[in-house]
Structure formats: C-alpha cells, structure tokens
C-alpha cells in the first residue's frame, strides 16, 4: 500500500500527536514510547486528520510557508510514517 496524492492519512489508533513546549517540538506518543518530530514532520502530521488528502495537506503547508514544490517531500515522509505505523491511510 503506497501513499499517493489522493490518499487520506490519519494518525493511527493508539498514537497521539501533541505539542510539547518543554521540548519545543511536536511529539508522537504511543504505548510506552515517544518520537520527537522535527518541524516539517510536525507540520505534516498535524494535518493528518482523516479528512484532508495528501494534495490538500501539501497545498496547505505550501500556503502557510509561502513556498512551492513540497509534494515529493510530503509523500516521502508519509511513506515512512505509514511504514512505521504512525499513520494510516483511511
């Protein structure tokens, strides 16, 4: 199952994304563990709400950061995130 621009990702059950001021980062929490996310991973994952597709997520990030051409990066990250089990494709 590979991720495409029409895929609709969402945070997998049992995982929770949260902003941690102490670490100045988004973290992904899961049973007995935690991943500290870098800024772009955090921006992508916080948009994985089970409603927006990858194209919309990419457009939204590009708009917010006033840039273009992020499509491949977003896809590549979501591919890893899916394989890690952090994200599911609805």
């Amino acid at each position, binding site marked *: 199952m590979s991720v495409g621009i029409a895929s609709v990702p969402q945070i997998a*059950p*049992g995982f*929770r994304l*949260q902003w*941690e001021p*102490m*670490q100045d980062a988004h*973290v992904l*929490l*899961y*049973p*007995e*563990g*935690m991943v500290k996310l870098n800024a772009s991973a955090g921006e992508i994952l916080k948009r994985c709400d089970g409603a927006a597709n990858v194209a919309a997520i990419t457009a939204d990030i590009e708009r917010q950061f006033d840039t273009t051409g992020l499509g491949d990066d977003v896809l590549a990250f979501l591919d890893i995130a899916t394989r890690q*089990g952090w994200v599911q494709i609805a």
Partner: protein
Amino acid sequence: MNAVQKTAPAAAIGSPHWLLCELTYRCPLHCAFCYNPVDFARHEAELSTDDWLRVLREARALGAVQCGFSGGEPLQRKDLETLVAEARALGYYTNLITSGIGLNAERAQRLKQAGLDHVQLSFQDSTREVNDFLSSTRTFDLKREAAALIKANGWPMVMNCVIHRLNIDHIERIIELAIELDAQYLELANVQFYSWAQLNREQLLPTREQLQRAERITRQWRERLGSKMKLIFVVPDYYETRPKKCMNGWGNIFLTIAPDGTALPCHTARMLPGLAFPNVREHGVREIWYESEGFNRYRGTGWMKEPCASCPEKENDYGGCRCQAYMLAQDPAAADPVCDKSPKHAVVAAIVDQAQQQRSIVEAKPLLFRDPKNSKALSGLGTSALP
C-alpha cells in the same frame, strides 16, 4: 549543585520523560520472578490520592510525558481512575501495566472515560497449568477476559510475557496465544535477575540451547507476521558480553515513585547500600530530580572506575546496571559484571555454565513465591518455612 557539575561534566541534566507510578505493592498474584523488593512487606504505607495528584502535576511540569501506572497490581487502588483522569488531562500518555486481575467491564469503561491510552497485559505463560503454577494462583481465565475487555475498549493490545527456563520451551504457544487475542505487540522479555527472580535464579535461567531455539522460533514468526504484530524478544543479559544501558542511564529519563513515596532512578535501586533516596512526602519532584544525592550519584560517567572510566564504549551503556554491579561484584560503582571487560565477569560466566548443567532443577529446589509471608520472613519481620 556543584557536586552535580563534577559528576556530570559532559552535559546538563535533562528532564525526566517517564514517570513510573508504582501505586501499590499489593497484588493478588505471587509471581516467582516478581520485580517488587523482597522486603515489600516493610514498605506498606501507601501515598494518598492527593500525594499522587501532586506528583503527577510536578513531574509533568518538569517535562515528563509518558506516565505508567504499575505495582503490584495498580487495579488494587480504588483511586486509579482519578489518577488516570488527572494524568490524561495534564497531557501525559497514560499506560496501565497490569496482570488484568480486577479488570471488569465496569472498571474498563470508567478507565476509558478517564482517558486511559493504553493497557499492557502481562501473561506468565500460555497454558493454564504453567500460568497458574508460576503466578501461584488460578488466574488464567481472568486474563483472557481482561484481554477481551482491552480489545472491546479499543486500546492498543500490548502483551508482555516474562520468559524463563520453565516456560521458554512454550514460546510458540505463547506467540499463538497473542495472535489469538489479536495483540499488536508482544514483548517476550527474558527474566532479569533482581528481587524475587534473583532468589529463584537457578530455576529461572534458561540454557543456551533453550535460548537459541526460542530466538529461532521468534525470528520465524516475526517474518511470518510482518507488520500485523510486533514481536520483541529481550535476551537475558547474562548471555551477553556487554551490559544493557540500564534505565537508559541513571537519572536520565526515568523517574520511579514507589508506593510509599520513595523516588527512585529505577525500581530496584533501593537495594543499593549507602545511598538514601528522597521521598515525595518531604521533597518536591524538581528538587528530587535535579538536586538529590540519590539521583546524582550515578548520573553520567563522572562516577566511574576502571575499566569503565577510560572505556571508549562508556556512553553506549553507562557501565550497565548499578544493582547488578552491587549484587555480583559487591560494588555499586563497579562495571556491570555482564561486561567481559569486568574483572568480575567470571562470576556471570560461572552462573551461565551452571545453568547448562542442571537438569531437573525444579524438582531439586522449590520456587520461592512472592507473597506477604515470605516477604516478612525476608525482611526479618516474621517467620516462614523459607529454605
């Protein structure tokens, strides 16, 4: 704070990430490998609900983000739901580590409403006979019910089975049971030799042959299961030549609070001689974490002796486990004797050798089950038929 700088020159002290609340030493089971202190009968005065609520708030303010409720059996505390609700509201990821005894539909629902994120269910073995024998009670069916409740409430299903000489040959059956119960993670953790397991070590340490067979079977199942279930196999460190990075470093990530409020860098650290640990009844969590002698003594690498002090690998394992160094080398600041650079490594090698020779050890020596009577005797507080 000067002492701190001296003992940990490399880096500033980070914040705790994990708060482990050992709510009680009470437990309806009597596991022969229980990690509670053998003299738990001495430490029965439990913290109040208000004390625990304060600990939760203070540790969260320091940056702790994972919160585990364990014991004993945490379901024995009537205020578990209250504590889970507060922890969840504070932003912790909340983990309940339970034998499942005491979990019924009503309690599961209340815990769900409180916002509990995850339940880790421990099994002693896959068959009723061995499970009941090793935990010295009749509880296997209750555990299956608990597993069903975990599923029904949509919690991630994480199973943990302590592996040792008496059940390691059933490993395939254990994995099949986890599949049957639809577990997402199965942790097959070889018993670590502390507390009750240390007393029962001869009966619990597997042979090399048993271990290799179990690893082979686990590998085969891991390939077959793919991403359906995550299989984690933890080898007994006696069979290694480098020690584990115990607790990920002393006072580095983990903050454990014992039932009586004693704050510990690790749940077995209380056994170490000459080191007093602060109690949350008397001190704030911040002061405990950053300033207490108990947390600073073995932080970082500055306290090390040879061979660790000049070892190029010291950042990998921080010299291993302080309790193991104390138990096997009679010096808490020594290298963990699991390390083959330790001058005391021969002690571990001899234990491992002996394990290959014994055959019917179970018949030869009875297991010492964890129960209040045996604990009182081991604390010098009462009498029992201890061997």
